């Protein structure tokens, strides 16, 4: 039964435990995940930074290589030689055969006036003048020039490398168009994963290579090159569709190109989401487990509490009962004691009257016999009253238990012998089934005998005449159980609980005090045992006396 107190307590315990255990769990789970995500991002940033740097270096090498070839050419071959078309053509041929990977599309010689003197290649550039072109000025000044990418021959991206000769009086320029396909491929390899991208933009933000997402080559990118500083910088940007992207930009050293490597968060293949989901699952399972365990344990706890309460109240009830018996006993003793005194006087006065009736003067009286009879009756009933009071005082008696070495079977047998005659007269058979070798116990022999006598007497009285009684003893663990079964009419259920109450008797007035069983109960209880009964109208009644085996102390 749930008392309101425990409902409240249960709720509180569950609530507090859950809060205390789940909150940290969730907090930790969340914190760890976010830290992980943070670290992930950090790592992603670092990665693309490094990638950008190293790839930028590689691209630099690529460009430098080509520039070097041209400068070597320019420094080794004389102007007059190379400006001859067939010589130019054969040099071009040789270079292309040896190093097809160079991507050399054409080559041309331009003099110091900007005049395109010799050309080998697919375009029709001979005779053009570049004096006005800014790149011309630049190459004449700086000695080398790399152009931005443009759509060239066959609508493929190209860029130009031009180098100026250093030898001689007149400067001249060797110009070559490079197919940026190889270049593009190099850039493309940096595009890692499913969301990674890499491309080059020039100072104005125009794509120099084809990006994977978000633009076309030679269109304006959304990035602002000025945002990327000298060192390889990494930034973050949430673009139009709400995705977070990391960008790392590394400037090439050879020209004003910026290699941009981008990554969409660190969530490659949605790993992060996976981890997050797993995290949530674990925390969720943890929470469920905690909840289950808490509820279960609290339930057990409350149950135990309730059980305890029950036991305690049971114990209290027992104590109250014991107290009641003790109080009753005291009261009975008090009453008996008080009554004894007047009884003594009545008895002696009756005796005195008897003494006087023997005197001469009374012998003549015609009522003498009646007097004597009456006085005798007084005596008789005083005696009867005496028995009652002495019984009651016996009930309340609290003598020190007197411990003998008791052999239960022997005491039983003796008691049965006492009653043998009585039983035989009433045609009642007493059968015994006594376990051999019962342990000797330390107990009060006379008191035990009193109990056996009482129970056996009750059995005989229950049967009346013609029947049988079975007496058995058996040892069970640390107890000896004595059972006395009679095949009498049995005891109705309602009476069974009252039978050990003092003054409860079913016998006619004057035939029984109703104290026998309650005294026996008290005696056995004090010995640490118990008396119980089982009864059935058709089966009869069995009394069970349980005695703990107390080993006698060695003397």
């Amino acid at each position, binding site marked *: 039964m749930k008392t309101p107190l425990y409902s409240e307590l249960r709720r509180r315990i569950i609530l507090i435990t859950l809060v205390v255990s789940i909150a940290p769990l969730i907090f930790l789970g969340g914190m760890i995940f976010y830290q992980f995500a943070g670290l992930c991002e950090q790592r992603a940033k670092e990665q693309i930074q490094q990638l950008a740097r190293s790839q930028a270096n590689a691209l630099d090498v690529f460009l430098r290589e080509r520039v070097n070839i041209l400068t070597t050419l320019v420094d080794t071959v004389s102007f007059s030689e190379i400006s001859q078309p067939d010589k130019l053509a054969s040099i071009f041929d040789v270079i292309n055969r040896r190093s097809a990977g160079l991507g050399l599309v054409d080559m041309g010689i331009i003099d110091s006036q900007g005049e395109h003197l010799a050309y080998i290649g697919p375009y029709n550039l001979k005779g053009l003048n570049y004096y006005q072109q800014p790149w011309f000025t630049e190459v004449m000044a700086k000695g080398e020039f790399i152009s931005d990418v443009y759509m060239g021959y066959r609508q493929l991206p190209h860029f130009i490398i031009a180098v100026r000769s250093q030898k001689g009086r007149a400067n001249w320029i060797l110009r070559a168009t490079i197919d940026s396909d190889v270049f593009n491929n190099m850039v493309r390899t940096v595009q890692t994963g499913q969301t990674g991208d890499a491309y080059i933009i020039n100072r104005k933000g125009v794509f120099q290579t084809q990006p994977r997402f978000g633009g076309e080559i030679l269109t304006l990118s959304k990035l602002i090159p000025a945002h990327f500083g000298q060192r390889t910088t990494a930034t973050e940007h949430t673009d139009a569709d709400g995705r977070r992207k990391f960008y790392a930009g590394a400037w090439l050293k050879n020209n004003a190109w910026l290699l941009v490597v981008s990554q969409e968060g660190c969530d490659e293949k949605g790993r992060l989401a996976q981890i997050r989901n797993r995290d949530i699952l674990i925390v969720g399972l943890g929470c469920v487990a905690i909840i289950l365990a808490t509820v279960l344990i609290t339930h057990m706890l409350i149950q135990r509490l309730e059980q305890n309460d029950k036991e305690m109240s049971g114990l209290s009830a027992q104590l109250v009962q014991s107290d009641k018996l003790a109080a009753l006993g005291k009261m009975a003793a008090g009453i*008996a*004691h008080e009554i*004894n*005194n007047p*009884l*003594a*006087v*009545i*008895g*002696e*006065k009756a*005796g*005195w009257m008897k*003494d*006087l009736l023997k005197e001469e003067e009374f012998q003549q009286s015609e009522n003498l016999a009646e007097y004597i009879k009456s006085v005798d009756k007084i005596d008789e009933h*005083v*005696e009867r009253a*005496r028995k009652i*009071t*002495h019984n009651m*005082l*016996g009930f309340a*008696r609290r*003598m020190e238990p007197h411990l003998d070495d008791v052999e239960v079977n022997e005491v039983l047998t003796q008691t049965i012998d006492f009653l043998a005659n009585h039983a035989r007269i009433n045609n009642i058979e007493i059968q015994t089934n006594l376990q051999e070798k019962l342990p000797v116990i330390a107990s009060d022999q006379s008191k035990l005998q009193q109990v056996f006598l009482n129970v056996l007497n009750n059995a005989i009285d229950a049967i009346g005449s013609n029947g049988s009684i079975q007496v058995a003893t058996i040892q069970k663990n640390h107890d000896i159980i004595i059972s006395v079964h009679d095949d009498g009419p049995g005891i109705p259920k309602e009476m069974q609980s009252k039978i050990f109450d003092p003054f409860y008797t079913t016998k006619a007035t004057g035939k029984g005090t109703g104290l026998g069983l309650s005294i026996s109960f008290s005696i056995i209880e004090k010995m640490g045992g118990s008396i119980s009964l089982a009864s059935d109208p058709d089966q009869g009644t069995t009394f069970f006396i349980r005695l703990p085996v107390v080993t006698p102390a060695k003397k």
Partner: protein
Amino acid sequence: MELFRILVVDDEIDFLETIVNRLKKRKLDAVGVESGEAALALLDQQLFDVVILDIKMPGGMDGIEVLREIKRMQPLVEVILLTGHASVETSIEGMKLGAFDYLLKPMKFDELLEKMAAAFRKKAVQDQKIRDAKIKELVRYPARVLDQVKKNDK
């Protein structure tokens, strides 16, 4: 032969009177007093052979105390205890202190007579022994005995 003298001590006057009367009816020399103090006062002046003593007398001296005093004053007196207290413990304690026997109240008068008879017999044997011892002493130490006789005469 002297009559045996009986002293009955009980605070219940109806009981006391009846017992004394019944004893007297049987030609026994009985005296009754109502309290332990009265009993001791009397024992100081007169000799008794048997004292019938009610142990539990509320107010005044405790029965066991009285018993002790009696034994101190007249050690040869036999005491029979009456107890309305069915607690045998007190009676057994009394026995240890030298009481002759005990009876539970309400008692059977005949039982009292029996116990008294037994007490008398014991006393008679005791008295005989004492007499014999005195005679022996008389034979051995006449002077001492003469002194005693003189004392008794006074």
